């Protein structure tokens, strides 16, 4: 990072600040994926409602730090704690993690007794309900307008690019700390307990382990990490709106986990960077296509035009194509390397199966 900072103090080229944005978002998604890895990779819990914990963390951080409604025009919300930045940041992030963990415990308490696939449906539905609550309880969340004055800590004291670099470094530090703590946990007897519950709940119970409590603890830890990611996200983007927290987030995180390797913390981080990098960089497919047309000889350019001809000529076509490509990527991984890049095929032998 040291080598990077001096240049940033000057100013970043366009591609540089774009790259930094992608890396920061990838760092935040890495946390989400690490959280889901605790649920699915280590405990075998199929959680399709991960975005709810992310949203809970983001809204918590926002509500603790946005200015009171009197200072914001058109505000519907009644509560904004306006914690001063940057001192309020640790409080805000810890609260985001706690609320994410509490919501996960609550959702877990209602559905953790369900078998794997029922749990998937239940968590998906509960996350949907949570999203509706966020949208409709405008007194708390400002409804569909969202909370748009979330402070970016330290932003006032430095230039846009310097802040972007600083915040990225901060995200990386948080990521490293969280990854270290989670690795310690998963390598401890607690991690062994999680894995045993993943492999056979019946056997774990018959060996004297309270599997319900184990699964709730797992839910809480993964949810807290996702909540923390939400807090980081809120302070990075500066606004929190329900449209940011759609089921697609959950599935992106799932895709990242499957690509990187289930039950591997390294794999989770790798998968998140790969997927977010891929998702963001393919935004430029149109630009690449245009520059190709300009630089290629006429014959080749005409051939390219002809090849693209049958595809619909619509502004949203290329951006939507990105999700098709991500889908293909997942199909390829599941077909040729089901354990993901860093996963161990032996370890995921029985994952997600009923006893």
């Amino acid at each position: 990072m040291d080598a990077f900072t001096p240049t940033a103090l000057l100013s970043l080229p366009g591609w540089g600040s774009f790259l930094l944005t992608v890396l920061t978002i990838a760092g935040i998604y890495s946390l989400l994926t690490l959280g889901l890895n605790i649920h699915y990779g280590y405990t075998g819990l199929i959680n399709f409602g991960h975005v709810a914990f992310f949203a809970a963390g983001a809204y918590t951080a926002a509500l603790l730090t946005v200015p009171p409604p009197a200072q914001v025009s058109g505000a519907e919300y009644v509560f904004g704690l306006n914690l001063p930045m940057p001192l309020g940041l640790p409080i805000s992030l810890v609260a985001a993690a706690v609320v994410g963990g509490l919501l996960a415990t609550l959702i877990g308490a209602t559905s953790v007794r369900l078998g794997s696939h029922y749990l998937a449906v239940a968590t998906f539905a509960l996350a949907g309900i949570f999203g509706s609550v966020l949208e409709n309880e405008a007194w708390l969340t400002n409804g569909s307008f969202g909370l748009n004055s979330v402070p970016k800590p330290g932003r006032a004291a430095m230039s846009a690019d310097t802040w972007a670099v600083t915040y990225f470094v901060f995200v990386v530090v948080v990521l490293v700390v969280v990854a270290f703590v989670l690795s310690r946990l998963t390598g401890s007897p607690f991690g062994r307990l999680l894995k045993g519950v993943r492999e056979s709940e019946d056997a774990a119970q018959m060996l004297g382990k309270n599997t319900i409590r184990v699964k709730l603890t797992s839910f809480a830890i993964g949810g807290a990490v996702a909540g923390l990611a939400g807090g980081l996200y809120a302070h990075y983007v500066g606004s929190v709106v329900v449209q940011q927290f759609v089921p697609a987030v959950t599935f992106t995180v799932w895709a990242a986990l499957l690509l990187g390797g289930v039950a591997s913390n390294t794999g989770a981080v790798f998968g998140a960077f790969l997927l977010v990098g891929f998702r963001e960089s393919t935004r430029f497919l149109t630009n690449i296509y245009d520059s190709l047309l300009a630089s290629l000889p006429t014959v080749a350019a005409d051939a390219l035009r002809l090849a693209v001809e049958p595809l619909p000529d619509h502004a949203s076509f290329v951006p939507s194509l990105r999700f098709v490509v991500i889908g293909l990527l997942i199909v390829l991984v599941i077909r040729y390397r089901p354990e993901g890049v860093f996963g161990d095929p032996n370890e995921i032998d029985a994952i997600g199966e009923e006893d």
Partner: protein
Amino acid sequence: MSRDSSESDAAASVTGSDSDAPLLEVDDVVKRFGGLTAIDHASFGVEAESITGLIGPNGAGKSTLFNCVTGMLTPDSGAVRLAGEEVQDLPPNRIAQRGLGRTFQTPKIFRGMSVRENLAFAARGQTGERPISALVQPGTVGSEEADIRERVDDTLAFLSLDHLAEEYASGLSGGQRKLLELGRVLMLDPEIILLDEPMAGVNPALADDLLDRLHELNDRGRTILLIEHDMDLVMNHCDRVVVLHNGQTLASGPPSIVQEDERVVEAYLGGFENE
């Protein structure tokens, strides 16, 4: 109910009247699934430090009874007493903590974990199972892990699985899986061990080994209740036999008496004596 007064005092207490209560007591247990009565007022006792065989034709309710005793199913009526205390309403993990271990008909091993991890999992009272403790008490957790590792090594040696310690359990053969499951129960170190067809699918050489191990455990004071179809094995190795038929206990007592009981011969053994 067949009884044999020549057996030890403990054995005579199957009826529960004239001696100490048995270690495990199934008292008038009923379990219904819809219209089917799987367990129909079954009653029997398992004496401490005995090897007791639970036999009966297919569908007699043996595995269901195991599930009722271990808490995986809750009986509709009746009581299950472990060391004199009623446990029929407790969840399986609480019953296990009170000193009851079991294996399953089809071994439920932790396939995606190493053989060593499978065994270490089962140790009781691990401080490092609490996430906070795992992070902030590395000293305690480390010394506990060292103790567990030693016990795992002993158990692996006892079961002749030591060469497989670091293998994933998914790579084990059927017989080795049975041994691993038994090893896990040994790590739990219960008073009474329930084994659901421990010999089924185990090759004969390994089965003899396994039998020796069971006797060795029994000699060390462990009580064993096992479901088994191999009649020679039951008759030669069990101190007492309980016969289950249509969910009812048809007879219980020493093998020599039980195998002469007319109802038992009729219901199940038919032709055993002609073999």
